[in-house]
């Protein structure tokens, strides 16, 4: 592997990679994302390999196992380039036909293409499928075009040009300015401006500083970070290096899940390849900037995605949060300034540097710029990862992209942000996707998981479910969180089981207030959020459950 020492060498290498590639050469891109894994896409991939070998087409056709394409519901997905024909729900049995008909004779197989379940309208190309049509795929769009285990693929789509631009043509201050102008906000849930966070870390005293990718993604029902981190790890790494340069850090950490081996494998591979090319390590691109990255795995604890807990975990301690009177960007890992951002935030950085903050701020709403990845799950026709510009209404996402509710049911609510998020009812579906608009409604966007609930769902039960989860995940260090959640859970269980009493709702409100005010970290502070939001919009359900109990008690007395 040649080491790259300057911007021109990088461009030359890119040219070299591109010249070896014939844009007309057929390529079969098979989704190897998490969602398709369980649909035995491994068997589909090996069937393709076997078929290509059998027909002796190895030099004429490329096979690429890519990251998540996003449309998990219809997996395994297969995309045939250069025509970009998209086949859904492919089985190993279909493989010989695809190779002989589509790859060699350019014929579209009618039975494998997408058909609209309502109208029966067919769509042969990815861009025509309603799920993709209504998206703006800046971040995840490249997933289908690259093999996450090949840095050349990433270079071929223009990768690392933002890195060379920032290291060789821009000063750290200019980068900070650009990120601030782009109004990039943290995608992990808080929506804190990334530029300001970086600036704090940069200005904090001390020579040693750290940058961290939070790829923990503990939020239930969220799976877009995985899609990016395992499907396009270089984009996150590129953003991380740029951020490190802007902050003045020489050591980065990627913190991710232990239960998804694919993640660690792809990240490790990306790090090794980047190091071989000289895009990571000492004297990156000949700029004199050194940067190293370590991968750390979580131990499956929800709270370890919280920034201070995550840093303690990297230090080798149990992941328990600490009160953040001093921000982690001032005192983080081993007391050193540490800038932590979510996977998606880092992945946005190369885009901003590459295309400029003006281009970036042209999409989005007044205070939320750019695009957002959301993961759709629950009672929805199209489960998957979608990328939409901020400002898209929730209704458009659920019905335009998500395809609505299965089995002809009506929608009841959309729950944002997992166990510490909130729900909005059907009547508010026209709210635009925006950090502040949704937070105002008591349903902060969180990391972007959208759990769609149909009319049969009991809101009391789903709220109880979230509290049950949190009561297991509370570390127990502070009493308000440990006991508050436990007692709220008990009352809710009673209400659900028809043993509710009058005054329970008021009691719940009182406990949630104390838990929220007195807990140490975000887990306790926001534990009652789903409860409060369902109480706000679905209070009648709680009351009905309690009233039912009262009536039956009166009957007994008679």
């Amino acid at each position: 592997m040649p080491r790259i020492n300057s911007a021109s060498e990088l461009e030359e290498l890119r040219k070299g990679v591109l010249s070896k590639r014939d844009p007309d050469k057929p390529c079969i891109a098979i989704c190897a994302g998490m969602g398709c894994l369980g649909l035995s896409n491994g068997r589909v991939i090996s069937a393709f390999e076997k078929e290509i070998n059998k027909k002796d087409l190895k030099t004429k056709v490329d096979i690429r196992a890519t990251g998540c394409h996003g449309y998990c519901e219809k997996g395994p997905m297969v995309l045939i380039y250069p025509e970009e024909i998209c086949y859904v729900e492919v089985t190993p049995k279909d493989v010989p036909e695809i190779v002989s008909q589509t790859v060699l004779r350019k014929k579209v197989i009618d039975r494998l293409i997408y058909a609209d379940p309502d109208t029966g309208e067919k769509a042969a190309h990815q861009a025509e499928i309603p799920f993709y049509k209504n998206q703006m795929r800046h971040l995840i769009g490249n997933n289908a075009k690259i093999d996450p285990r090949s840095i050349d693929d990433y270079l071929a789509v223009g990768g690392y040009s933002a890195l060379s631009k920032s290291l060789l043509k821009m000063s750290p201050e200019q980068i900070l300015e650009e990120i601030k102008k782009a109004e990039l906000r943290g995608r992990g849930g808080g929506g804190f401006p990334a530029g300001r966070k970086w600036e704090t870390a940069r200005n904090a005293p001390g020579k040693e500083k750290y940058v961290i990718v939070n790829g923990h993604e503990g939020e239930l029902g969220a799976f877009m970070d995985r899609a990016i981190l395992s499907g396009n790890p270089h984009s996150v790494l590129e953003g991380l290096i740029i951020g490190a340069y802007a902050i003045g850090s020489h050591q980065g950490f990627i913190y991710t899940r232990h239960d998804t081996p694919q993640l660690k494998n792809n990240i490790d591979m990306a790090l090794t390849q980047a190091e071989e090319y000289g895009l990571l390590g000492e004297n990156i691109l000949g700029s004199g900037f050194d940067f190293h990255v370590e991968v750390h795995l979580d131990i499956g604890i929800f709270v370890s995605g919280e920034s201070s807990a995550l840093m303690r975990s990297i230090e080798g301690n149990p992941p328990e949060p600490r009160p953040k009177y001093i921000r982690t960007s001032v005192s983080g890992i081993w007391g050193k300034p540490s800038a932590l951002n979510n996977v998606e935030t880092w992945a946005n950085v190369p885009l901003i540097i590459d295309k400029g903050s003006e281009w970036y701020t042209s999409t989005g709403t007044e205070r939320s710029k750019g695009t957002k990845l959301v993961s759709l799950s629950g009672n929805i026709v199209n489960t998957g990862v979608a990328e939409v510009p901020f400002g898209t209404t929730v209704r458009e996402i659920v019905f335009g992209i998500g395809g609505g509710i299965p089995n002809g049911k009506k929608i009841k609510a959309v729950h944002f942000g997992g166990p510490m998020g909130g729900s909005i009812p059907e009547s508010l579906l026209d709210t635009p996707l925006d950090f502040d608009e949704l937070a105002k409604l008591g349903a902060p966007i969180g990391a972007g998981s959208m759990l769609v609930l149909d009319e049969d769902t009991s809101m009391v039960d789903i709220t109880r479910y979230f509290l049950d989860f949190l009561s297991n995940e509370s570390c127990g260090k502070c009493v308000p969180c440990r006991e508050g959640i436990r007692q709220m859970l008990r009352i809710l269980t009673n209400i659900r089981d028809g043993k509710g009493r009058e005054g329970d709702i008021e009691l719940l409100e009182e406990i949630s207030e104390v838990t929220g005010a007195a807990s140490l970290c975000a887990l306790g502070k926001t534990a009652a959020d789903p409860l409060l939001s369902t109480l706000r919009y679905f209070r009648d359900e709680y009351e009905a459950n309690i009233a039912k109990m009262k009536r039956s008690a009166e009957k007994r007395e008679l």
Partner: protein
Amino acid sequence: MAAGHTFEPRILGFLCNWCCYAGADLAGVSRYQYPPNIRVIRLMCSGRVDPAFILRAFLNGTDGVFIGGCWLGECHYITEGNYDALSMVYICKKLLEHIGLNPERLRLEWVSAGEGIRFANIMNEFVPGIEKLGPLGKGEGLDEHELKFKLEAVTKLIPYIKLVERERLRVPVRTEEEYHKFFTSDEFNRLFNELIGDKLAVCQIMALLRERSLSAGEISEILGLSPSEVSRHLNVLARNQNLKTVAVDNDKIDQIINKHQGKAGSLVQVLLEIQHENHWLPQDVLDRVSTKLDVPLSRIMQIVTFHKTFSLVPKGRNEVHVCVGPSCYVRGSTRLLDTVQDLIGIKPGETDPDSKFSLETGNCLGCCNLGPEIIVDGKHHGRVTPDKVKDVLKNYE
């Protein structure tokens, strides 16, 4: 009389000095007839009878124990010891029942000093009753060894039981109705099983393992506990570091430790890798990690007991995870989990006695399109309805 073959029950009586003993005396003086099987120990108050006395009596081959005290409200001491005797007897009867002995072998009666005839009547009833039950243990179908083993296990627990009685099982109002109401309530049953039943099982498992090493399956058979219960108790034992476990390949462990040596914050990664490699963390491995990385064992235990990723007991050959993320939840993972539990007979966090399956509930793994799903040994099985589970699990040995 056929020589040596009629069963003459041995009965021990603990009689209170002020009432029952005087009553028995009166019965004698008044020449009332009753069987002569009872040997009497005089105490100042029935409240003096310690559960240990009763168990010791049984351990020494007594077939029945009788306790006689003053009528409630007539105790000669302001501490009202006979109420203590009452609750002690309720608990002891429950204990006897729990280890498979007939609770009728223990009897508590109130006899005042003037009721000689009542004492004789009670004896005329109690002794034939015991005679009908047969010799201790044999009557219940327990062999001698088993009986001794169980009684010893309970005896060891007595200090703990007394503590539990004082903290959780004391009735605040001293009337017979209240005592009866509490000790026959479901609440008492629940507390007993939670506080004493589980401890007793653990105590028995420990006693068994002290004799020789056994597999979970053998323990379940000997003690008549369900596999799910045995697995749960073993988990508790391991967490308290009471379980000696089989040594593993130290070289492999050293390799993992050496790979990370010197790097700050490597503890969690080392433990994760060992867990991944070995599927569980034996005690001696933890000791080794502690010495090698120079980290106190208490800190290691803090980490490994915090989450279910780490296991301190051997896992089954196949690890079954049922996803209980919200998306799977609204798509019916609760029913799926119930079906899996019924099929393999264990609850989440437990391992079956054949070490075939370990069951866990897993949080969202981000394959929400597959919900409800189960993951066996890392392989995802999506869109599993309860009736399909059997087909998935039958492929694993």
